[in-house]
Every structure is written in C-alpha cells, then in structure tokens.
C-alpha cells in the first residue's frame, strides 16, 4: 500500500515536471517574441521602439540561451517568483493571477457544485419517473449540445439588451465603488446571476444525463435484480444504485474543480466578466511567456491534485482498483 502510494506520488511529481517543462517550451516555439508584440501594441516611433526593444529584451532576459532561460525559470519558481507579465506590464504574474482568480471562484465554484447537486438529483429522479425523463432530459440534451458561447450570447442579448433585466457586462455596476454594504453585495450578485446561470444550465444538463444513464445501468444490473428477487424494498435498491452511480460523478466533479483555475473563458468574454480565462487567451495571443507559464502552473497543480485525490478516493471506495494495484 505504501509502496503503491509512493509510486503514485513519484509519477505525479514526474508528470508535474514534464507538464511544466512542456508548457514552458511551447510558447517559445511560437513565431515572434513577447517584447516585439508588446512594442507593436505601443505603436511607437521606430527610434523609440528600437531603444525599448533592446532594453526589454535584456530586462526580460530573452537574450540568454534557451537552456539558461529554462534554468532561470526553475530557480525563480523555487523563490516563488513567476516573473513579470509583458501583456499587463509591469505587473508581476502572481499579482495578476491573484486578482483575477477570485472572480472565477465566485462564478465557477457555485456553478459547478450547485449544478452537480441539482443535476444528480434530477437525473436520479428522471431515471425512474417517465414523464420527467421525457421532459427534463431532452432539455438537458439541448442545453449540453448547444455551443456554449452561442447560448450565452443569445441569453445575454435577450435578457440583457432586449428585456433589459440583467446587466451585460462587468462584475459590479460601473457606477459603484467597491465597499461592504448590502447595496454593493446585491449589485454584485445581480451582475453575477446571468454568467452564473448560463454556466449552471449547461453543466446541469451534463450531470443530469450522466446520472440518469448511470442509475439506469445500476438498476438494471445483476445485483439490483438479485436484490429485487430477494424482496428488498425498492427504496433500498435505489439507494445502492445511487451510491454506485455517484462514483463516476464524483470523479467528474473533482476533475472540474481541479480545472477551476483555468477559468471560464467563454463566459468571461460573452459577459465581459473579469477572470483568468480571458487572461490566458490574451497571454497566448500576446505571447506573454511569463503569464502563460504562471497560469498553467496553477492549472497543472490543480488538475494533478484533483487526479491524485480521485486516486486516493478510489482506493478507499472501490475494491476493484486495489486489485489492479499490484500490476505486473
């Protein structure tokens, strides 16, 4: 058991190392470099641009050989230094992430958790109530099948522009100064609602369908039949089915939560909501090596941590896994 865990841990560390290296390397294969892109945005006179170009290339240490940049990166990482962003110059990458991530947590955490709970409930009920199966499920299919961005834009346009019920941009009213009061919190929630519900709806459909199918599998499986033939009350059988069906759902939840730092790019763009997703897109488009590295460092950590936790949970919950543990 301990050996197994040790091996797992080692593999995860190795994965971390390889993934971070790949993510460090990939942006550097892109044509151009962050300083040139940064200068292009400034649209300076050529003489000024040339002065700044040589300065920034030195300042960002992009004139060093690649292997040295790579070593510098790890050395800085151990000091907790993620570097300075070129797109959002002169802010340190860590600050940028720290300021943006709370918005994502505020949006995604409730959306993921609530949709998971609601989706599982409704899916489980739909598995045995026919009319529900024929109403909620098709709705769920349509929701998960529509391109999210399209759905969100139509939603924002219909409820925000045409009906005028909800705001269409910002984390809180543009005429509001952040402070602690009911007025502000109300406004915050009001701006949050539309992006949140669009995420909730789409995720809800996915969870509900997954749960419904899973429960049906379980209810139709041999052990359920066996229990039924023994005269076990339906309630109890359903309870067992529900429990077994939960396992993959928990995996899904953990993976979703692990990727939470990646933000919700589409939501952020459509609703002009601040967050890390939009940062990543821009970091890539602006070839901001440092911001890309920083963001992905957090994503890698999150995803691997979630995976590791799932592994642990499976060992405890599912005896079949233990069988595979010994391997060859």
């Amino acid at each position: 058991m301990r050996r197994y865990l040790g091996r797992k841990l080692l593999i995860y560390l190795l994965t971390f190392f390889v993934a971070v290296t790949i993510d460090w390397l990939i942006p550097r294969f892109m044509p151009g470099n962050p300083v040139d892109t940064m200068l292009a945005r400034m649209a300076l006179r050529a003489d000024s641009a040339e002065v700044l170009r040589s300065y920034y290339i030195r300042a960002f240490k992009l004139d060093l050989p690649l292997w040295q940049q790579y070593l510098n990166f790890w050395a800085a990482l151990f000091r907790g230094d993620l570097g300075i962003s070129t797109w959002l110059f002169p802010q340190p990458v860590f600050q940028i992430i720290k300021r943006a991530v709370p918005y994502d947590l505020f949006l995604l955490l409730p959306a993921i958790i609530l949709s998971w709970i609601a989706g599982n409930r409704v899916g489980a009920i739909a598995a045995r109530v026919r009319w529900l199966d024929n109403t909620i499920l098709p709705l769920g299919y349509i929701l998960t099948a529509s391109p999210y961005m399209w759905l969100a834009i139509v939603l924002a346009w219909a409820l925000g522009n045409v009906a005028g019920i909800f705001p269409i941009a910002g984390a809180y009213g543009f005429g509001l100064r952040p402070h602690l009061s009911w007025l502000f919190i109300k406004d915050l929630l009001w701006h949050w609602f539309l992006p949140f519900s669009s995420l909730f709806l789409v995720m809800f459909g996915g969870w509900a369908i997954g749960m419904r199918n899973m429960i049906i599998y379980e209810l139709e499986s041999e052990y359920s039949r066996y229990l039924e033939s023994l005269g076990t009350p339906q309630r109890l059988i359903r309870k067992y089915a529900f429990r077994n069906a939960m396992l993959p759902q928990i995996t899904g939840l953990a993976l979703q939560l692990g990727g939470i730092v990646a933000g919700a790019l589409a939501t952020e763009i459509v609703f002009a909501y601040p967050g890390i997703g939009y940062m990543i897109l821009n970091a890539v488009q602006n070839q901001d090596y440092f911001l890309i590295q920083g963001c992905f460092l957090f994503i890698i950590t999150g995803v691997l941590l979630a995976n590791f936790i799932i592994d642990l949970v499976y060992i405890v919950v599912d005896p079949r896994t233990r069988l595979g543990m010994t391997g060859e």
Partner: protein
Amino acid sequence: MAQERPKEVRSEFLYFALRNRKLRVGLGILVFFLLFAIIGPFLTEYDPNTYAGPSAQPPSSEFWFGTTTFGQDVYSQFAHGLRSTFIVGLIGGGIGTLVGVVIGLLAGYRGGMVDEILNMLTNIVLIIPTLSVLIIIAAYLAVRGILTESVFIGLTAWPWAARAIRAQTFSLRTREFVDLARMSGRSSLRIVFTEIAPNMMSYLFLVFILQFGGAILNAATLDFIGLGPTRGMSLGLMMNNAVLWAALQLGMWWWLIPPGAAIAAIVGALYVMNVGLDEVFNPKLREM
C-alpha cells in the same frame, strides 16, 4: 446452426434499433443534416465568401437565409459550414476515439507501470495549453484548415475516452474468457484486440458518438474565440463573424441563430442516439 447465428443477432439488433424511438428521432435529424451538408452547397450559385448581394438582407426567395453585413449569402455559408462540421466530427471524433481506445485498452489491460505511464501521458495532454499549441501549429503550417483543426481536436480530446475505456477494460480483464485466452499463451496485445475490444464494441461505438459530438462543439468554441480555420467556412466561423459584426444588435438574427441551432440539433441528436443505441445494445435497458 453456427452460421445462422450472426444473422439472427443482426436482425434482432435491427428490430430493436428500428423500434427505438430515441434512435429513430436522433438518426432522423442526423440524416437530415447530413443530406443537407451533402446536397445543400449545390443548391446555391454563390461562394460562401463572395459579396453576392446587398448587405444585411433578411431571408428572402433570392437569399434563403438572408445576407451578411458584406452581402454574403448566409445560406451558402451555412451549407458549406455544415459540411465542415461533419468533417470535423468524423475526423476529430474518429482520431479521438482511436487514440483513446488504444491507450485506454493498453492501460486497462496491462495495468502497473504501463498504466502509470499512459496515465501520465493522459494527464499531460489534459493540461497542455491547447490554445498556444494551435497558434504554433498555425505558424508552421501556414494555413490552418478544417482538416488541421480536426486532427488537432482529435489529438487533444482523447483523454476522456481513454479514461472511460481504461475503466471498462479493468472490469473485463478479470473475466473468464480473458483468463482462458491468457492461459492459451497468446500475447497480451492480441488478447486486447481479439478478446477484449470486440466485447466492448458497442461501448466503443458509443464513445465514438460522444467524441463526434464533442469534436463539433470543440471546433465551434475554437472558431468562436478566433482560433478556428483561417481558410474555409464553418458554422463556428459564421458565429464568430456574426458576433464580431454585431449581428444580433443590428437585427441580423439570421446570421447567428441558424449555425448555433444546427450545431445544437446535430449534437443533441447524437446524444439522443447515444441513449437509444445504449438501449439497443443492452437488452436490460430496453424496458425503460
């Protein structure tokens, strides 16, 4: 007797398949759009990108789906876009399934170190910055076409399939017939592909359908954020353009609504089919 069995199975399958309402509806929608994608482009004289008529015209007998800001024929864009949607689904979903199946089967059957390494690979692909990879690919290929996009989507979408198949294989590898095969001294690769895979055929098919739908949605997202094909037409690109040129605000709903609705219909139909097929493959579920 032995020769008749497969036929029997097939007709039984067909019987249930045809009786299954979900499968019929899903397949119906899918076939409709497929035919549309095949025939549709021939019904219009306009190229999707030429400025064919006056700008921002609502649907009419001349321009069935209206025109864009530039006077391009929305119908032509839609019909051509539908084609690429199916191409992306087929190729992207196909590659995604294939890679997922191979890795999932190997990891699930061999277990141990092989499993760990493949799991590591899966995790790395999961967290790779796909956006920048896409930009790099674009830089080296000069042109980012529908085909490149499909292959790319396939190569980044397989981890989910691999995970699911690995779990399935785990439960199959302890079954008697696999043990039997193993005792007969066959190589594990052969066992995987001759014993385990066929037993999961229906499951693999379902995975393919999901990957197919997923690839279409992925392509739509990539196109939407402006990382789609730089040449050609797709439904996602249509939506991207419609949004960039403020179609909704300017009242040109005919530019944005059809492509999104078509994707929703196609992918939705695939999902419904998936459930239907599930019921056909698993007799136990049929009563439902």
